[in-house]
C-alpha cells in the first residue's frame, strides 16, 4: 500500500483504542482518521472519511465487528478490514480457514505493520462464510443494510415491519420509511426465523407487530399490524401458521 493510508480504529474499549493509536504513531505512513466505539459508528465514520483500512474489534456492543464488516462490504468502495480480538475461538477458526486478516490482542507492533501492509478487502466468499458462522452462533445480525445513493443505510431489525418481495428486489418497510435490498426473501426468512413469519409467498412480517387478521368481502384475509395501514394478504397456505402465532400471542398476553 502507498504511504499516507488512512486508518479507522474500531473498539469499544477506550484503552484498547489508545493502545492502537500509540502503536500507529510509531509507524510511519499511517494516519488515524477516527475512532469508533461500535459498529454503527464504524459505518458512519467510514462513509464520512473513506479510510483505506479498518481495524475492527469483533466484540462490540450494539453492532459487532462481524456484522459491521458485512454492511461495510455493500459500500461502493469498501475499506480493507483487519479484525482484532482478545479471545474468540469460534471466530478465529473461521478466520484461519478463510484467510481473513486478524490480529490478536495485545497486538504486537510488528504484526500490526505486517497486517497493514498486506491488508486487502474481504472477498464475497469470505464474508459469506463469516455471516454463516454468525448464524451458527445463534446471533442474527441486528440490522438490515441497504445500498442508497452514496452509501449504506442501516435499519435496526426490530424496527422492520415487513419484507415484501417484488421482482428482483425486496422492499423493507420499517417504522420511518422504506428501502430496497437485494437479499432474497428466503435467506431473510432463515436468518430471522425467530422474529419474522412468512404470511405469503412474497411477504415476511415481524411477529412483534402483528395484532390480528381482517377479512374482506371477497373472503381474502389480510394481516393487521400495530402501525400503519398496510394491505398485506395472508395466503391460504400460510394461514394456519399465522393463526397459530396469534393464538400463542393471545395466550402469552393473558
Amino acid at each position, binding site marked *: 500500500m502507498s504511504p499516507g493510508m488512512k486508518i479507522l480504529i474500531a473498539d*469499544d*474499549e*477506550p*484503552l*484498547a483504542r*489508545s*493502545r492502537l493509536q*500509540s502503536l500507529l504513531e510509531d509507524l510511519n505512513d499511517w494516519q488515524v482518521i477516527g475512532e469508533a*466505539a*461500535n459498529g454503527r459508528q464504524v459505518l458512519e465514520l467510514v462513509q464520512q472519511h473513506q479510510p483505506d483500512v479498518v481495524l475492527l474489534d469483533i*466484540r462490540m*456492543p*450494539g453492532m459487532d465487528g462481524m456484522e459491521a464488516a458485512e454492511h461495510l462490504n455493500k459500500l461502493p468502495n469498501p475499506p480493507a478490514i483487519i479484525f482484532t480480538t*482478545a*479471545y*474468540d475461538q469460534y471466530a478465529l477458526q473461521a478466520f484461519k480457514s478463510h484467510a481473513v486478516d486478524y490480529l*490478536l*490482542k*495485545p497486538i504486537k507492533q510488528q504484526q500490526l505493520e505486517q497486517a497493514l501492509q498486506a491488508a486487502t478487502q474481504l472477498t464475497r466468499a469470505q464474508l459469506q462464510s463469516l455471516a454463516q458462522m454468525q448464524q451458527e452462533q*445463534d*446471533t*442474527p445480525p*441486528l440490522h438490515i443494510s441497504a445500498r442508497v445513493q452514496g452509501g449504506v443505510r442501516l435499519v435496526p*431489525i*426490530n424496527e422492520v415491519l415487513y419484507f415484501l418481495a417484488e421482482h428482483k428486489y425486496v422492499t423493507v418497510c420499517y417504522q420511518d420509511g422504506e428501502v430496497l435490498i437485494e437479499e432474497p426473501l428466503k435467506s431473510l426468512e432463515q436468518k*430471522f426465523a*425467530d*422474529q419474522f413469519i412468512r404470511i405469503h409467498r412474497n411477504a415476511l412480517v415481524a411477529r412483534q407487530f402483528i395484532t390480528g387478521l381482517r377479512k374482506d368481502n371477497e373472503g381474502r384475509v389480510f394481516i393487521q399490524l400495530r402501525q400503519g395501514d398496510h394491505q398485506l394478504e395472508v395466503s391460504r397456505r400460510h394461514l394456519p401458521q399465522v393463526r397459530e402465532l396469534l393464538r400463542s400471542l393471545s395466550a402469552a398476553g393473558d
Partner: protein
Amino acid sequence: MPATPEPSRPSSPEPEQDNLFLPDFCGIRMVFLVVVIAELAAIVIALAPMETPLTERWAHLGLISLFVQWAALSSCALLCLLRRQLCRLRPWQAGIASYLLILLVIALVSEGAYWLVHYPGGMSALWHAKFVARNLLIGLIIAGPLLRYFYVQHQWRRQVRAESEARLQALQSRIRPHFLFNSMNTIVSLIQHNPQQAEEAVENLADLFRASLSDARQRVTLDDELALCRRYLQIEKLRLGERLDVHWQVDALPGDAQLPALLIQPLIENAIYHGIEPRTDGGTIEISGELVDNQLQITIDNPIPDNPARPHSRGNQLAHENIRDRLSAGFAGPTRLALDQMDHHYKVCLSFPYEPWHENSDR
C-alpha cells in the same frame, strides 16, 4: 494400535470421528495387522494336530495360510466397504452385523476352497459339511474375542477423550480466557501512560487468579469474597471506563459469614459479560444484600441489551448450574439461586445460611 486415518478417502475422511467401534479397515496398518493375526491363527491351526509328521505340516501350513488369509482379507475389504452402513447401526447391532459378515465370508471361502481343491475327486457330503462347520467354528472363536477387543479399546479411547475434555473445560472455567486476554490488553495499554494503574491491575489480576486456581472447596469469609469482587470490578472498570457503574449496598451483611470461594464473583462477571458489555452505553450493576432469618440474601441486578433477538446464552446457564451445585454442596442448611428477568433487567438472587467464620472451621 490406532488405525491411521487416510485423508484421501472420501467416504469417511475422519474415521476417528464416527462412532463405530471398529477400527478403520481401509487403513494400511489395519490391513497389515489383519494379515499378521490371520497368519498367527493359521500357524496355530497347523500346529494343533499331533499325529501329522513335521514335513507335512509345512505343506499344511501353506494351504491353511492361503485359506485363512483369503477369508481374513475378504472380511477386511467388506468391513471397509460397508463401514458407512455399519455406522448407522447401534453398537450392538453393528457388532452382530460384522460378526455375521465375517462368518458369511468364512462360509463362502470354505465353499470356494472345497470346490477348488476337492472338486474332481469329490469328498462325501458329510466331509463337506464337517469342513465348513469346522471352519465356521474356528472363525467364531477367533472373530468373537477380536471384535470384543476392538469394542473395549474403542470404549477406552472414548473415555480417555471425554476425560481430557472435561479436564480442559474445568481449567478453562477457572482461567476464563476471554477475561484474561482482555485484561492483558488493558494492562499493555496502561503501561506507557499510566504505570501506576497498570501495576494495580497486575496485582488485582494476580489475586483473582490465585483465588481461581486454589482448591475449589476452599471456604472464605464474605469480606474476602467481596474484596475479590471489588478487585475484579476494578479491572473491568479500567477496560469499560464510564460504561460500567457499580452500586454496593452490602453493609447489612455480616462480613464474617463463610462461603465457598468464588461464589459471588462469577455472578458479577456474568452480569458484565451478558449485561454491560453488549450495551452501547453500558449500565449500572447493583449489588445488594441483607440478612433475613439467619439467611444471607445477596442480589445482583444488571440491565440487559435492548435487543430482544439475542437469546440467553448456554454458557450463562452452565455457570448458574455450577454455582447452584456449589451452593447446595457448601451448606448444610437451605440454599437458593433464583434468576429473574424483567423488562430490561436481569436479577440473580443468592441465598444461603449464615455460618460465622471460626479459625479452624474447615469442613
